[in-house]
């Protein structure tokens, strides 16, 4: 069967820039801060923020680590030049290495998580300096798969691209004119040398986006996904990943004691009163 994730990019652009403008303004701000990794997701969020708020109102922050690929810095630089936005480069090496040094047995995963969380600290600090809200850069695929560091790269004030699958991010990024090297390179968290998303996940975004599109957007049962041609093991593995990472998509549950408890029966939108 034909599984078509194509989106109308001009409608997406219109909605997402309006979203950023509305939600930043209603929170009492007029500016935004984006951590630019050199990848496509943060490039897209940054570009949408610039369209929404104006180029003088978006600060791009590059936060390389000693082993980060030089391409990452350079690609982020291409976008900063193209958009003509203010930027800062704040290296995190000296911040994270003392922590790494405390435990010689520290794993690659722990280092990666520490780096992601250190970048969050820098970004939120710059948010205060620039008086801008942190714009999220997590796409729907990685949110559903839990492929992120909690309170690290997943932390933001608002997220314009969280309802776009990775392949839709690519489509929109292409339509918005994001520099070709960013569009074309393999996606990577760049937490260690040679890391790629697809290598680490064990499948491609093309494959998993189609499956998630059926499971989540079209409410297909796992059996129906297998019937239309997805491999059974792949379907089960993806469903397990989504299930096990549900905690990453929620605030921590609070144990109920009183008659009115945050999260259960104290219910207001963030836009309350605005």
């Amino acid at each position: 069967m034909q599984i078509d994730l194509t989106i109308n990019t001009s409608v997406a652009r219109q909605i997402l820039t309006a979203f950023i403008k509305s939600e930043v303004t209603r929170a009492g701000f007029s500016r935004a801060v984006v951590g630019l990794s050199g990848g496509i997701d943060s490039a897209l969020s940054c570009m949408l923020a610039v369209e929404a708020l104006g180029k003088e109102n978006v600060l791009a922050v590059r936060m390389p680590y000693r082993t980060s690929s030089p391409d990452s810095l350079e690609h982020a630089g291409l976008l900063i030049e193209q958009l003509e936005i203010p930027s800062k480069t704040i290296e995190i090496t000296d911040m994270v290495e003392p922590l790494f040094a405390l435990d010689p047995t520290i794993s690659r995963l722990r280092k990666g998580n520490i780096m992601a969380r250190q970048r969050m600290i820098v970004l939120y600090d710059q948010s205060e300096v620039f008086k801008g809200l942190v714009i999220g850069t997590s796409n729907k695929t990685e949110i559903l798969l839990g492929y992120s560091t909690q309170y690290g790269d997943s932390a933001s004030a608002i997220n314009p691209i969280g309802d776009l699958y990775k392949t839709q991010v690519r489509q929109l990024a292409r339509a918005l004119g994001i520099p070709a090297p960013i569009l074309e390179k393999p996606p990577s968290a760049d937490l260690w040398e040679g890391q790629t998303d697809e290598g680490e996940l064990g499948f491609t975004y093309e494959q998993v986006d189609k499956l998630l599109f059926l499971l989540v957007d079209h409410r297909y049962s796992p059996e129906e996904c297998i019937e239309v041609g997805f491999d059974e093991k792949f379907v089960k593995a993806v469903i397990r990943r989504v299930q096990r990472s549900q905690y990453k998509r929620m605030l921590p549950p609070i144990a109920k004691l009183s008659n009115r408890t945050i999260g259960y029966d104290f219910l207001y939108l963030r836009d309350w009163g605005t």
Partner: protein
Amino acid sequence: MKLTLALAQISTALGDVESNLEKHLEYIARAKAQKADLIVFPELSLTGYVLQDLVASVAHKPTEEDPIFKPLLEASQNLDIMVGFVDEDARHRFYIASAYLSDGRVLHVHHKVYLPTYGLFDEGRFFAWGDSIRAFDTRFGRVGMLICEDFWHASPPYLLWLDGADILLFSSASPGRGLTDREKLDSARWVERVTRAYASMFTSFVAHCNRVGFEDGLLFWGGATVNDPNGELLAQGPYFEEALTVAELDLNQLRRTRARLPLLRDERTALVQKELNRILANSSRG
């Protein structure tokens, strides 16, 4: 007879009734400047939509004593006004409601009878269900009001039609969803399809006013429409932005269309009643 209709697809502040009232009065002034006879506001236009625990604090009674309705009633001296609000009854049940104001009086209040409580909707958790569907007389003829989910069920517009309504006024707070490769969101296509179908099937005027603006991540898509008794689109507001869409309705079109297409004349209500009684008596069919 002509009716100049103004559809005010506004954005609202969530839970800030006073500032929403100010906006209503601005749009009313604009509609008057364009010589409109009737202005229609969206669902919950005075309060905002995803109210949750704000419901009790934004409720108002459509009376002259009420500080929100007083200026609206005053403004209805030479322009009829349909507004969306939270109505509280004497026993403190809260309803999603539309009020029709004319010449300083409240002609009718409709309580939403279908409260979507599934998917992204949670109305049944916070609101009481309305339990009547009535048409009412205005200076333009007989009118019926419905709110959003009400017209996703075929029976409320049908009942209004049988109750004499020739002008159906629909209001919505419809969140945009379903982005595909098309130019229109799924939610816009769905609503446009059904509202137009009612105009054709009931050979009546059908106006629909949907709000705009964000509430957190939900964007209401606007796109107010009015269709004539032939099911022809007379006017449409833009998507996603605030607008006052003004259209002139030639009410004589009712006569011309129904002379060509006597669906109302031929409607077999006794047959409907007989079969409905049978079906409901045998309710195990579900």
